[in-house]
């Protein structure tokens, strides 16, 4: 589990690494941590999987990937892990999650598909439906329209409690 210093570090780096010759030293200055400790803690957080990746986070839309759909299915709970694993193999899928069903929203499997245009995304979805045999399950396709906000999660530190939830 991350300790308080890890959470402080994540809170200060989640907005982005500064563009200067010694960015890790600069982040460290804000929380009284030396450069070597910043680097070793980030390395450890990556190894533990608490940082999934560290690097350039691109904005898809201005780079020509104008279409983005969130696709949801209602699949049997017993098969969701296997189906989630299969869906994740496709390169155009950027996220794949299980979320709880609600009476007004009875879907439990979510994935995000990015493509250059709507037709491409729909063709990719057809490919998924066929390859993973998802065609018989109830589903919804929600293309995105306006993006009101996109930035990294800001973890207010130090937290009073850490709850394993998402």
């Amino acid at each position, binding site marked *: 589990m991350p300790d308080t210093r890890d959470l402080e570090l994540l809170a200060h780096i989640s907005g982005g690494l500064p563009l200067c010759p010694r960015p890790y030293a600069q982040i460290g200055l804000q929380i009284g941590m030396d450069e070597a400790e910043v680097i070793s803690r980030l390395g450890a957080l990556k190894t533990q999987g608490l940082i*999934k990746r560290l690097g350039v986070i691109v904005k898809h839309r201005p780079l020509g990937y104008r279409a983005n759909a969130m696709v949801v299915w209602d699949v049997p709970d017993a098969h969701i892990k296997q189906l989630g694993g299969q869906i994740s193999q496709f390169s155009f899928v950027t996220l794949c999650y299980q979320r*709880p069903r609600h009476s007004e929203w009875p879907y439990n499997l979510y994935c995000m598909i990015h493509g250059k245009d709507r037709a491409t995304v729909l063709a990719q979805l057809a490919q998924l439906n066929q390859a993973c045999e998802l065609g018989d399950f109830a589903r919804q396709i929600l293309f995105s329209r306006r993006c009101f906000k996109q930035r990294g999660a800001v973890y207010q530190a130090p937290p009073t409690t850490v709850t394993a939830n998402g």
Partner: protein
Amino acid sequence: MQTTTLSALHKRLLNDFQRDFPLSPTPYRDIAEQLGVSEAAVLAAFAELDRQQLISRIGPIIPPNHIGASTLVAMAIPAEQLQAVADKISAFPEVNHNYEREHRLNLWFVAVASSQEHLQAVIATIEQATGFAALQLPLVDDFFIDLGFKLDLQHA
């Protein structure tokens, strides 16, 4: 949307450093050496990508269920009120992604807080401030989280 002409350096910075950004005291110099350009050129190119809003940031992707508490939230907002409601929601520092989607549930955002109590307080405040119900869809399991994305920048 403006059409941007990207240099070869811009393209490599966009595609080759989405994962495993150098964890050394001088990451930009390491990248510069790898690409055979100067550190100043790398810093200037990243600044330009940032200025043109082609990158969100250089930073970590943190999976949602390990640190703090977070949830995806869906709301059904009448079209004529959507921008105003979305702006109110975006103003919360706990909200990081906020999108309009094509559905009756047309506003989708992610809220992140240091604890479940804090998260629920934020959602309650949002419901009160907007007058609309928030459908909470927290993560149960993740099969795959954005591990970067190979961009086809041939025509960019």
